[in-house]
């Protein structure tokens, strides 16, 4: 069982181009439809649970592993999800280092920059849309926070704290 979890998440790790949100449909297919380890409702609940923690949301895998097989499942899912992709990144970094003198390398890498920034912007917009389900107040927070982070160099902690306080007052 633990071995199967490790294997399943290792495969997910290597198809997760774009990170956790990109791999979620495939994760659902594997865990719910193929293996029957989780049902639909549990899968959604666990996803929400993972969102409540800070850090990279790829750790949604850890929560799923926990639910499937306890602490061992959590360890196997986390290891499987993180390690294969990290090893690949390690070797690609080495390759980049060896190619560093090549005149095409910097422009080629530069070509990936707008794609990465575009996807960050998209993630922010998706998060803003999700927060709109709580009414108009969150959108005001989104707008203020956007300007604050974009136009100043103060710590974003201020807008996170402010958003949390407003949420406690107006959404509670």
């Amino acid at each position: 069982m633990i071995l199967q979890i490790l294997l399943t998440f290792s495969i997910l790790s290597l198809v997760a181009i774009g990170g956790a949100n990109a791999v979620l449909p495939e994760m659902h297919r594997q865990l719910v439809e193929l293996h029957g380890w989780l049902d639909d409702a549990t899968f959604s609940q666990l996803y929400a649970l993972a969102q409540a923690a800070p850090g990279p949301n790829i750790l949604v895998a850890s929560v799923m592993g926990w639910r499937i097989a306890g602490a061992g499942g959590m360890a196997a899912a986390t290891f499987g999800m993180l390690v294969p992709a990290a090893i690949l990144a390690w070797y690609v970094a080495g390759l980049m280092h060896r190619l560093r003198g090549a005149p095409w390398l910097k422009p080629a890498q530069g070509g990936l920059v707008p794609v990465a920034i575009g996807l960050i912007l998209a993630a922010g917009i998706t998060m803003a849309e999700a927060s709109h389900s709580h009414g108009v107040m969150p959108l005001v927070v989104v707008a203020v926070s956007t300007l604050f982070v974009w136009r100043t160099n103060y710590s974003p902690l201020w807008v996170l704290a402010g958003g949390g306080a407003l949420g406690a007052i107006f959404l509670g």
Partner: protein
Amino acid sequence: MPEAPPPATIIPGPAELFAGYLKIGLFGFGGVAAWARRVIVEERHWLTERDYAEVLGLGQVLPGPNVGNAAVMIGRRFHGLSGALLATAGLYCAPFVILVLLCLFYDRYGQLPAVAPVMAGIAAGAAGMVIGTAFKMAGKLKLRAEAVTILLLATLGAAWLGLPLPVIVLVLGPVSIALSLWRAGLIGATGAAR
């Protein structure tokens, strides 16, 4: 606010590398990429804006979380294998511990702690932080018109059309690389004629 002159980059020691990534993981609610840029570029000056954007771009097209891949590559650059391990451990350890606690709570009470309104407010702040970070990066990197077009197409595809991210990366990535090489004069007449 006036732009300060860009400070020279600083090479972090192993402990600083771990501590920096610990902060990124701990504060990274919703938008860990925004916190990673904040800590690495603005607060600690490990990498320049462009350098960081390039590492992140590479991390984006590889499987796995972009920030996680970037942690491996940045850690390796500064301290080899131990650097990659320290950065990765720093990034994941705080969120992992918090998740374990949440799981224990959930197992015991069958529901999440009643912090939903606070979290909704924080999520709204985080959404703005992520959007603001994208604007800031695009502005500071002085992207050319074609790069801005690619950026907006990626946003459109992911946020409004709901296209799978691998499709966006596999279509726009090569096009964007080709445009960038053409700008650098590395693709000849065929590229310039387009």
